[in-house]
């Protein structure tokens, strides 16, 4: 059973084809980078993967559950960090996590324990009582990752999670999520920044709604992934 399977997904925005027969799968416990320039279809794919809208064609399977036939079971096994912040800034860090836990059916002491464990995992436990509005960008992102782990998902999706962060925060968050994958979580990490991809990562290069390359990053990129990426997507260096 794969962690995440995307099978022949197509989607149109009016006359424009945003995803064109997209297929790839990610094994359990693997960090997969979804690399693509702006407009490649990454956000559309995330919308489809999280069932914000259904694709015109194709199938998505999350940890063995078909999104069309068992949407609740598939969503229950998925953690998501969206590109735009989805925090309630007026609430405390812990209250944000408890709200999310309740949306996943967790309450009482169990929800508290899981929320604190998730915060602890991301080094955020001591900030549990602080208002989300007081956190800096890096800590907000960590908090969103912690929140996405509260219900112990099998698959973690992150849509350009380092946008707007400084270099140190980017490096720390990239490392945290690689560690999570090493612990057995299936990760799909969308980005347009080549330096976030490591040689041993699984890599899917997306351009104009199609998969241009799919394999181990080191094999695809060779000595210079950046040059390879630019060559594949036809952009100027």
């Amino acid at each position, binding site marked *: 059973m794969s962690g995440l399977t995307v099978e022949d997904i197509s989607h149109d*925005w*009016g006359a424009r084809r945003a995803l064109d027969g997209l297929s790839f799968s990610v094994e359990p416990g693997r960090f997969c980078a979804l690399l693509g320039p702006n407009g490649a279809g990454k*956000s*559309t794919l995330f*919308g489809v993967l*999280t*069932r*914000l*809208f*259904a694709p015109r064609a194709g199938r998505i399977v999350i940890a063995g559950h078909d999104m069309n036939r068992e*949407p*609740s*079971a*598939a*969503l*229950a*096994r*998925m953690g*998501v960090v*969206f*590109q*735009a*912040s*989805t*925090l*309630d800034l*007026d*609430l405390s860090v812990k209250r944000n996590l*408890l*709200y*999310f836990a*309740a*949306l*996943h*059916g*967790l*309450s*009482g002491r*169990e929800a508290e324990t899981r929320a604190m464990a998730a915060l602890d995992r991301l080094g955020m436990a001591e900030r549990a009582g602080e208002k989300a509005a007081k956190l800096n960008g890096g800590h907000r992102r960590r908090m969103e990752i912690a929140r996405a782990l509260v*219900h*112990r998902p099998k698959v973690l999706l992150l849509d350009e999670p380092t946008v707007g962060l400084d270099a140190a925060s980017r490096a720390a968050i990239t490392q945290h999520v690689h560690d999570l994958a090493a612990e057995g979580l299936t990760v799909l990490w969308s980005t347009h920044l080549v330096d976030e991809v490591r040689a041993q990562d699984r890599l899917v290069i997306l351009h104009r709604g199609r998969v241009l390359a799919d394999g181990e990053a080191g094999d695809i990129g060779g000595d210079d992934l950046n040059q390879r990426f630019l060559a594949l997507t036809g952009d100027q260096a």
Partner: protein
Amino acid sequence: MTVEAFPVAGSETVGFLKPHPFIALRAIVHRETLRFLSQRGRLIASLVRPLVWLFVFAAGFRAALGLSITPPYQTYITYEIYIVPGLVGMILLFSGMQSSLSLVYDREMGSMRLLLTAPLPRWWLLGCRLLAGSLIAVLQAYAFLAIAALYGIRFPWLGYLLAAPAMAAATMMLGALGLLLSSFIRQLENFAGVMNFVIFPMFFLSSALYPLWKMAEASPRLRDLCALNPFTHAVELIRFALYAKGNATALAVTLAAFVVFGLVAVWGYDPARGMTARKA
């Protein structure tokens, strides 16, 4: 329209002997209540509008508008007494629209995504949001009724009690309309424009400010339009309930409008067929 089932009880994330849908409902109501309480200006703003109408507009119109005896009234009444149920309707109307405005805001800000990706049927999640907004609207309406009582406009105790389900039905219907509008509106700027085309015609083309027979004197066509307006029936439902009386037609129209608006709203938010499928 895709009909979703609730998650199977006993799955890894559901357990703990508590039904998942109700845990989510409680959390959504709690969140909306906390948001409302943290925005102190919102309660004040929601009360100032009807109070200005009551203290200024109604006082001025008292002399100009003579009201005959029509049910549920059993004697001649002053204009202030007539207008109070309409102003309760106004609070519910504005609150319902504000709730849907916050949905558009949530969608622009991204927090709507968090709600819609919860592993529960979308109709349930939208229903929870609607219920939370309705609860807050009814509390605002009771705060207004308390001030009106201090001003001297009082209703029977049973009326205050029976007004609760009437206001709940009215606010759910108006909230469902707001939900419907929010599913078709993508940006806050557009929302403001639509509000002008919805709130004001709905309020003024109703029995909130003047009885329908009075409107018929001015124009029978306008009266017919008012009679078709579901908000008229919501106001009449509240008016009769406040006097501990029932109004079957008003209840039927309000509930029917709630069902129609609710179904279209759920369609609008359906991942495969609604507006969310047309634009990211």
